[in-house]
């Protein structure tokens, strides 16, 4: 039985407007994992995070953080959580140092300049500590928001679209930072639009659509289960139609007739490739090149979201 740090049970949220943003979501988040939540805009990812952090009141259901109910024991549950929201919302006139010190205090922690220095150094913000936030670039402000969330040494970190609008360099930095945090035992929940990011970072992936948790799965398992492999053969001579002998195979002739695409189950014990190649030879079909490809998380995501009702 894995050790769940956050347990979400039958959580629903209907806003005053009548919009049902979350419908009966249940989920266990394991201690120390990186969970990526994927889903189209408006799917309910931010609502889910906001409820766990105490910004939105749930309509129904419960959430516990390390056994502490987020409503009844909000002090104990919130102390454990750091939140980096999606919007860049910062004070303008405060210095970086003042704002991270303020955040630490809000979470009930005694001042600890050494810890704050460490956080700021890790985020390459140390030389900006006396700058006013409004003087910083967008990427720097994003770092400030992360520093605020880390100021009180949270055990669980929520990153809502952490790399939206962030340049490649900073994105790499953030990934490295997330890995360091994870290595130190922090549980990380991130939402993202960049599927490559989830593929790169996550241990498990959850997909939310229309307020429902469509699926939660180990990333590797998900890729294995839903991923398809394809073998593409570039032919020496054009074919007008598939030879009779090859009909039983899941083969597709490209429109130009110059290549054959064979789709097979990555999970299957037998790919059927050797049989196919033998039959190709006996049918007199010769090829000059072959390559295999594997579907990416993006393909899987797109097909899931498209196929869902």
């Amino acid at each position, binding site marked *: 039985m894995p050790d769940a740090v956050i347990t979400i049970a039958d959580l629903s949220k209907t806003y005053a407007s009548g919009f049902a943003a979350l419908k009966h979501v249940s989920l266990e988040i394991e201690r120390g994992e990186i969970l990526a939540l994927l889903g189209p805009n408006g799917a309910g990812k931010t609502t889910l995070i906001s409820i766990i952090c105490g910004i939105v009141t749930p309509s129904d259901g419960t959430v516990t953080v390390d056994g502490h109910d987020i409503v009844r024991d909000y002090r104990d549950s919130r102390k454990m959580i750091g*939140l980096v929201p999606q919007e860049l919302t910062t004070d303008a006139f405060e210095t970086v140092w003042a704002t991270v010190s303020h955040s630490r*205090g809000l979470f009930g922690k005694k001042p600890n300049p050494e810890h704050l220095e460490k956080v700021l150094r890790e985020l390459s913000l140390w030389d900006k500590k006396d700058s006013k936030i409004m003087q910083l670039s967008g990427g720097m402000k994003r770092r400030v928001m992360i520093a605020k969330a880390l100021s009180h040494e949270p055990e669980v970190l929520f990153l809502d679209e952490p790399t939206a609008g962030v340049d490649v360099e900073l994105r790499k930095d953030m990934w490295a930072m997330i890995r360091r945090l994870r290595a130190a035992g922090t549980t990380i929940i991130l939402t993202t639009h960049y599927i490559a990011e989830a593929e790169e970072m996550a241990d498990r992936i959850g997909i939310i659509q229309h307020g429902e948790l469509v699926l939660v799965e180990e990333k590797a398992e998900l890729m294995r289960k839903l991923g398809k492999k394809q073998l593409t053969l570039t032919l020496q001579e054009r074919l007008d139609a598939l030879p009779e002998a090859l009909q039983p195979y899941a083969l597709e002739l490209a429109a130009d007739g110059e290549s054959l695409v064979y789709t097979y189950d990555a999970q299957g014990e037998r790919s059927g490739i050797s049989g196919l190649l033998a039959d190709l030879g006996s049918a007199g079909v010769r090829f000059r090149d072959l390559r295999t490809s594997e579907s990416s998380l993006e393909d899987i995501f797109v097909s899931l979201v498209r196929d869902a009702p």
Partner: protein
Amino acid sequence: MNVEAIKAIYKFEMARTFRTPLQSLISPVISTSLYFVVFGAAIGSRITEIEGVSYGAFILPGLIMLMILTQSVANGSFGIYFPKFLGTIYELLSAPVSSFETVVGYVGAAATKSIILGVLVLATAWFFVPIRIDHPFWMLAFLVLTAITFSLVGFIIGIWAKGMEQLQTVPLLIITPLTFLGGTFYSLSVLPPFWQAVSLFNPVVYLISGFRWAFYGIADVDISISVAATLGFLAICLGIVSWMFRTGYRLKS
């Protein structure tokens, strides 16, 4: 009790005040002082004493109240409105901070600033008008209680306001007229009986009357009523604030 959070909010708010000393401290003191320079020293000499107190000295308690009221409301409302406006309120809402601690932090800072201003105006007035304080304890008590109560009023407005206009409207359209008509510049006894009766519906009358009594021992209404009224307003404000937090009114969806 999350004492660190109270300290953090209080410090943050006080830093905001001292970052802009001209606007936050100097300008309210100067604009209030202008009243007793003009009415006290210049015109006041031509106005007869009221119950043995020179006109300049008579209006001082009302003027301090006027400033405390407007400044408390302004500070209390801006302090909570801006995080809401900027979106930085997310941090407060997600922090392990109770509503009580939030209010102590924000309202405490707003009231502190008003009290500092009140003391500054009082010190300035010393140079221009003859002042005496018969009941220093009650003078301080009224000062502190009024500052807290109206910082709470501001806090409520700050949570309620959906835009800058609402934020400015209440102080300008309600607080200022009530103060001017609440006996800052006159004793209620100079009014015709009908308007005297109407004035008693003005809550500010009780504050100014009590405050003036603390200075000179003269009052429009009995001091015990003033004390009761001040405490009553405080209780009402506390009730509204706790309702707002319990329901998440305009803070949480």
